[in-house]
């Protein structure tokens, strides 16, 4: 069971309190009606499924009810960081490959 640091509560809590909500940083198109079916389909359905570093959105459902983001390794389950909604990750697959974490 993962041990997750909620960036809003400022504490590590058990995974039981959280819900995984899939890939992070999916933005709703600003002009939905201007999207083609394909663009809309990409936004709605297509998600990354990397082996390794992934940015995910989580929901502290049994806690502060805040959504936040997490950089997590899908192989080792190591959590590199959690960060607030609207912020960008400081750890990425590229930064790790470049040796700067």
């Amino acid at each position, binding site marked *: 069971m993962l041990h997750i640091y909620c960036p809003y509560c400022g504490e590590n809590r058990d995974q039981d309190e959280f819900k995984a909500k899939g890939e992070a940083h999916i933005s*709703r198109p600003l002009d939905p009606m201007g999207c083609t079916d394909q663009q809309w389909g990409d936004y*709605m359905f297509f998600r990354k499924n990397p082996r390794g570093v992934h940015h995910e*959105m989580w*929901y502290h459902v049994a806690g502060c*009810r805040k*959504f936040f983001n997490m950089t997590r390794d899908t192989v*080792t*389950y*190591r959590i590199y960081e959690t960060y607030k909604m*609207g912020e960008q990750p400081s750890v990425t697959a590229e930064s790790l490959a470049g040796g700067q974490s």
Partner: protein
Amino acid sequence: MSTVSSKKSASRKVAQSNRLTRGGRINRNKPLKFSYNGKTYEGFEGDTLASALLANGVDIIGRSFKYSRPRGIFAAGAEEPNAIMQLGATEATQIPNVRATQQELFDGLVSNSVNGWPNADTDLMSYIGKAGGKMMPPGFYYKTFMYPESMWMTYEKYIRKAAGLGRAPAEWDPDTYDKMNHHCDVLVVGAGPAGLMAALTAARAGARVIIADEQQEFGGSLLHSADTIGGLPAAEWVKGIVTELQRYEDVLLLSRATVNGYHDHNFLTIHERRTDHLTDRAPLNMSRQRMHKVRAEWVILATGAHERPLVYANNDVPGNMLASAVSTYIRRYGVVPGNKLVLMTTNDDAYQTALDWKLAGRDVVAIVDTRANPTGALIEEARKLGIRLIPGSAVIDVEGGKRVHGAVCCSIDATGSKVTSGKEVLTCDTIASSGGWSPVVHLSCHTGSRPVWNDEIIGFVPGAAKEQRLCAGAVHGVYGLGKVLEDGVNAAQQAVAALKLNQPEVELPSTFEPVKSPAMALFYVPHVKPVSRAPKQFVDLQNDVTAGGIALATREGFESIEHVKRYTAMGFGTDQGKLGNINGMAIAAMTMGKTIAETGTTIFRPNYTPVTFGAVAGRDAGHLFDVKRFTAMHKWHVEQGAEFEDVGQWKRPWYYPKAGESMHDAVNRESKAVRDSVGILDASTLGKIDIQGPGAREFLNRIYTNAWAKLDVGKCRYGLMCHEDGMVFDDGVTSCLGDNHFLMTTTTGGAAGVMEWLELWHQTEWPELEVYFTSVTDHWSTLTISGPNSRKLLAELTSDIDLDKDTFKFMDWRAGTVAGVPARVFRISFTGELSYEINVQANYGLHVWEKLFEHGAKYNLTPYGTETMHVLRAEKGFIIVGQDTDGSVTPFDLNMGWAVGKNKPFSFLGQRGMQREDCVRDNRKQLVGLKCSDSSVVLPEGAQLVDNPKHPVPVPMLGHVTSSYYSPNLGHGVAMALIKGGLSRMGDKVYAPLRDGRVIEAEICSSVFLDPKGERQNV
């Protein structure tokens, strides 16, 4: 003689014939009676069930899984493959598959072997097994009973009866179980020499420490060791360490507590057996078992090593045992499990077993050492005692059926790959074997790390740690008492440093280290015949996997060790291959001409030993299994004899049967009462979300499909919610309480999901909107009165709300007082009748409910439940989200395009989705009404609909019935269905072919069956 129990003719046997008069950690002044397979025996306090059975000379404790061969106790701990028992004095306290080696004896313990038919001593299935291993190779069941496929279910019943382990109790478990959560700095797994030193070091540094061990006492191997530590007998030294550990406030010592699971981020589960050693049933007010859930900063694995048996022909005959187990029984329990011992070993350690046996006053026939020139301190000691040593040799076969009679000894070559000279049969009743040690790496694998082969120690050691995990002692191949103690200190010092605590003073006690010669790597003892033709050489005793079976699997093309495991079932038993796995992998490697390092190992998963369901469930059983939610009027419903329905976690009244009424009668009566006069529904369970803030109105515009810009204070509006794909997922009425204040209602089951949905969009996409959401479902009681007389009834209970039909209109709400209580009254309707939803603070709910009944008697005020609610709404064609929709239905499919805003400036959720190519095509399934041609028929919900029931299969499907009820108000069935292009097929006939052969004809019609103009709710 020790075989006495298996012979009926043996009239009377000496009690505990194998018990020594002195020694062991048992209390001879405290005899305990227990039963095994219906016979009563005696043991002592401190015994395990296994040691007590051995003391009484019981040889056969079960039959093997596949070949039904007689089996005896083989080991002394968690690795025991054979002595798997059914425990329990009553039906309710039955526990299957308990290892006799880990079950402490108590007075009155009742045990039985788990297999063997008609009994363990005489098993009919064994004749099939005896007829030759060739008859039952790996994959036997699949290969033999595969065809015809339809018969598998029949075969399976008998196969399961003949094989299988244990049985679950048929009655409710009378005991309670619980769970406990912990955090600690250092969790030490195992309280042997390494674990104790690690815990001591961490404790002295001031760390918060938990140390857990599966045995009843701390000490691990030291409890049966001949060693001295710091000049004290090992067990005495243990006592001193434990006494010190008990003094620290922040040190938790858990015995009888197996660390069974090592999960991600250093989360470990510990299964503690609190009363299993005391009585059949837990004492009053005491939980039987406890699951500890520990989150540890650092974990130190000090799980030691299991001795590896040797694989030779007929090595499963009772009397074959692990060398260290024999020592354990002698030294710890004062039990010698036989009279004449042959010891076969590849290493020096096992010599101790022969010494122990000899010192117990029994006969050591010979030590057969696979090495040509063994030298070392223990070997010298054996020689001094006059024990015969046969070097460069091996026991290749065993004589005897229900007990060992002889060991067939041959010399072998230096690599142990073939037999080099003729045989000598050594008469004996016990053969102890040792192939060296296998580190107990199980926990290190649980989070995905693969063990690594180490040639030097001839075993797998834990792979690189993913977590903050350290190892101490034999678990990573550190052997020799002095080194093990030091390793425990080292591991703890690493943790202490990482925790930024001060390093404590720890002095290493003195130990005696005998000089030893190197061990030989031998995983398979050669026979004069090749592996495929030799008598059965067992690798995995619990699953009856033989060396020949593994060789066959590799010949059949199973080369990956994971495939070999699954094909042969090696390591699949309740013992998880603790004894056999390494030998099996080595044999697979050998037959494929690879090294063990190349073949690798399968990995172990939780749990290390079986855990009872009780411990997993804890208190979450019976009435605590799931949360139940009750409304404020629940007591009243119960008193009125309501039948209840589960809606999510809520208990909702389903219908209120009067004496002698069927459900059908009750629902008909309730339905008519609403349409004829007035009924009342407890609608408190509907989700209610209070929405406030300057951005609230705009937020609603974006979340709902319809427009909210112009909804005035005092007004209510029905809304549909769609996901971004344009599919309906919830509906409800939202009311404007103030300019920046709304009350949203949701479906009962959807409340939590809607709340999350609102938060999601607010927090992730539109944080610029200032708006706040609060769940107020439980804060309000909702009492819905519905029917032509509802206004008259309400008028009797309120003086400050003007109920005039022109001022308090349909879809208005008013604040005021009802039955003397502040209330919000919403004039909305889910029945199509004149209705008022009275909302009061939840704790006034019952009061207002009862007042309504005081005044309602003259109007025949009738309580109605969810079933009547469904009938009434179906008469009106009102949808239930989740029943008439299934996540693939747009508002247009529901013929509810009127609820989709056309001119909303912001592209609301679902707008783009419902205009995708597939969502705007013709012939989508659309919600319509269905009226059966035979008005007495009610269509079954879920029935599939077709145009032509006589069409050859496959018949094109049109859709299905989503809702269907008998309408007492209309006198016929009413149904709704999703039908392809249904809205443009009014008047068409469709057919529902049913499973029972009937074909029901129905006509597509409007889904509004009653009062199509909606006049009844507008009076």
